């Protein structure tokens, strides 16, 4: 399986995606996922967040296409874990207003 590599930069202009990005905890999660792929279990440990909160934000980020599930693996405990990664290294918000 080829390793997923995020794009260097991605532009977003959809209002709901922009809204999704403007959230403190989602930004924290994204900042980790930009660096490396991680699981909900790893994120809750790294960010000291409730796993339910992490899962909720991961679902939201997935829904808006800001992150991607890269693989599914088992750790040494036998726990099945889904790995997530940011789709881009940089997120650019692009807003445009038409002249009336």
């Amino acid at each position: 399986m080829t390793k997923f590599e995020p794009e260097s930069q991605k532009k977003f202009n959809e209002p709901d995606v922009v809204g999704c990005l403007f959230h403190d905890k989602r930004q924290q999660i994204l900042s980790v996922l930009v660096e490396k792929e991680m699981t909900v279990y790893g994120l809750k440990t790294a960010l000291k967040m409730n796993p339910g909160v992490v899962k909720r934000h991961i679902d939201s980020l997935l829904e808006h296409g800001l992150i991607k599930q890269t693989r599914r693996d088992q750790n040494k405990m036998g726990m099945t874990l889904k790995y997530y990664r940011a789709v881009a290294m940089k997120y650019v918000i692009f807003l445009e207003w038409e002249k009336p």
Partner: protein
Amino acid sequence: MDVNKSKKTERISPKEISKLSFELLKDYFKQFAGTQIIAVVSTILVWMITLFLSGSLISLLFAESFYALSITLQDVISIFLFIPGFFVFFSFIGSGFGMASEILTGGDYYVKLKSSFYYFKKHWLGYSGLAIINIIILILVDSIFPKDIYPLDKIFQFILLLIIEASIKILIFSLIGFVPVALSQGNSFFLSFKNAWLVFKGNWYVIIKSMALILVPVQVFSFMYGYVLSFFIKSNFWWEVYFISWIFLFIGLFFIYFPLIFIHLTVLYQHFSTVTQNTDVVK
């Protein structure tokens, strides 16, 4: 891929397994305690409904003559009335195994409280059947080792018998306890017994040691608290305090200790079925 394979066959220590079980309980305490509450509330509701409906039925069938029936027949009818409630109780309690399995196998280390209803619906018969098997075995073990017949002057024999009894219970919990986990993970009722046995057979020493780590401290504490302490209580006031403290202890056991056992058994099964998955366990 070789790295993955060697990672999967690596056995972890009982201490690491216990640490993960406690972490899971800490993260999902609300969901597990919620399931226990649902079990209690729904059981009471079912009992109320059955008693209400059967009350009408009994008065219709027997009119005033119910109390004229033989005691045995009255007992049989009463037991039948309580059976649906027990089924509901054990099914919800058993769904704790399903929830723990979902956290470990779902991929997102996550479970919702409403999952307990899903496992209840899917495995109610299996969970109840297993609970009945467990209870019968425990009653048999208890009847072999009755606690009230040992005189105090034979305290060492008494303690030795207690240790033997506790060892048998740990063995039973370790062996039978895997069956609802296997059932929750989609195996059929009989295949669950087979898989539980295969996992236990290959790793029995570590499994018993891990179970003992969780069971022994609480069992010893309960014994000291429930048996030894009772010899030192003289006044009525302290008996009342003692009784109330037992209620709190029971609540603690019910909401914290029981889910911990479910989680621990699931973690153990999941780990050791992964370790032995290349050999026997039918997935």
